[in-house]
């Protein structure tokens, strides 16, 4: 795994964006990520579509490397931790979790998180619905209307960018999507699609697999509380 990082400052907090689809909030020693979709491959398998469990293994390997690299003490997952029902992938996740002693897990319930609360209890995951507030941030799953008081960190949309070069070339990649009041995380799992829609006033940052962090400054997006 090649790790590239980029520090940004939001509400006077330093956030380290990584090219591995998660960000690190230094002040809280927290790794923040979204849309892990654990259980997706098993859900597909149960429905007769053979998707290897290596998909999950790869995601968990990446997560482990990030936890160790940043020495994270908290995991804040802003929704869609589990894709569907309780299945063997969740068992794998449970076993995997045992290796991190003292790691605290926070989950903001997403639209896919439909397993019963006893599962979260068993995994020692602290759940919040619909929002988790750790000032100055408010962690939620889906988009919301702007509320001035908090800066929102969310997921759900699986944001991506299409960059277009000369000769009709285009490359599609996941990204962070930042506005004046919200940061949307890319989907952590690699077994997910990308949503490349975006409006004005949106800054999309970062590309994977490359040391280059691109900053797309669309229209008049860059504002005072976002020092990139």
């Amino acid at each position, binding site marked *: 795994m090649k790790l590239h990082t980029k520090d940004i400052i939001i509400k006077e907090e330093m956030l380290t964006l990584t090219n591995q689809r998660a960000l690190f909030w230094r002040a809280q020693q927290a790794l923040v990520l979204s849309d892990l979709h654990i259980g997706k491959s098993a859900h597909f398998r149960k429905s*007769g579509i053979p998707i290897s469990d290596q998909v999950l293994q790869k995601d968990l390997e990446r997560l482990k490397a990030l936890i160790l690299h940043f020495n994270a003490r908290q995991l804040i997952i802003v929704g869609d931790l589990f894709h569907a029902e309780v299945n063997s992938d969740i068992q794998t996740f449970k076993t995997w979790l045992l290796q991190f002693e003292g790691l605290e897990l926070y989950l903001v319930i997403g639209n896919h998180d439909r397993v019963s609360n006893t599962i979260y209890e068993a995994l020692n995951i602290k759940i919040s619905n619909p929002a988790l507030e750790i000032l100055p941030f408010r962690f939620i799953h889906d988009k919301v209307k702007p509320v001035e008081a908090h800066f929102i960190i969310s997921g759900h949309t699986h944001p991506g960018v299409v960059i277009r*070069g000369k000769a*009709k*070339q285009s490359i599609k990649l996941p990204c962070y999507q930042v506005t004046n009041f919200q940061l949307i995380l890319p989907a952590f799992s690699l077994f997910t699609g990308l949503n490349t829609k975006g409006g004005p006033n949106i800054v999309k940052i970062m590309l994977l697999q490359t040391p280059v962090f691109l900053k797309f400054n669309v229209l008049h997006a860059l504002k005072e509380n976002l020092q990139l």
Partner: protein
Amino acid sequence: MRFITSLREDFSWALQFITQGGTTLKAYEEFHKVVLEDDGKYKVKSRRISMLHRMNIGVIVSDAMLLVKFIYGGYIGMIEEYFISKLKPGSTFILGGRRLEMIQIKDMSVLVKRSKAKNAMTPSWMGGRLPLTSYLSHFLRLKLSEALHPGNKERELRFLHPLIVRQAKYSHIPKADEFLVELIETKDGFHLFMYPFEGRLVHEVIAALIAYRLSKIKPLTFTIAMNDYGFELLSDQDIPLHDANIEAILSKENLMEDVIASINASEMASRKFRDIAVIAGLVVQSQPGTRKNNKSLQSSSGLIFRVLEDYEPNNLLLKQAYAEVFNQQLEEVRLRAAFERIEKSKIILKRAKSFTPLSFPIKVDRLRSTMSNEDLGKRIQRIQQQVFKLD
């Protein structure tokens, strides 16, 4: 699958595939499709799986179809998603002899109302693209080379005469024993056009092959477009093709080796896999008219293609995608014949300042694919240096 022609080992693989999911057993825990019972019978036990399977029997692979309905009720017809997704609410199109204004798209349905607008789009379907046969393309080449002769009596050729004159003036009309290559530089980039007249499918193969051979000279990224009489390679960097090396690029030496390498490097197999994934039930299609669209099972065939390539490279469905490129598209005999003909032809390399009548229709073709042997990071850096757009 025709069982009589399939190999014993392929058949065993298929049995394993539907009962266990794949060759690495541990990786497919909980896989559930067909169950081998104690009495030796294979059974589908889950109602949901049998329903998904039944819905997929006799599937015709096409773009997703949407129902077109009046907003006040009343069904008009079906339309392909690719066409309708280009329209914005308020734009008008014609279907079932009516002018319709699109209001919104909801749950695989297009809601419309009558429109009095004068201009309405005529829908098009991706549907069947029947490529030219080798006989037809032979006569097409003859017709084109005759077209410049004065006193032509055929109405169609007379009608085309101004265009043909223009082609002759700015570039060249290939005669029956000539092979035309055009290099055109525009603000889009560097275009290479070739006109083998061999039909769309063969052109895709030749285009990938030429792209592969050129990118061996220096790393390049091409977008490829083609129609029934020619193809285009478009690059953002100068294409290293000139009189000195054009014969080597168009040579029939190492033909099949280079073709195989180029197919592996291009997106052709991944595109073929789309149909295979749908027929094999790996991609669950949403059915028009059904409310429940199996959202939690939705994925793209591209995603599944990548997963299989990474973790199950010996999957027969994956191999079939490559085999289909070879068998359906490649037509080795025809390809060889084409290259032998090109070798005997006089190659005419023309440079033009703007699009010629022959190149223009290919340039505007919207079905494009990409082929690259450049490092992704380098590509991104270069695009960053160019002016780029974002969406």
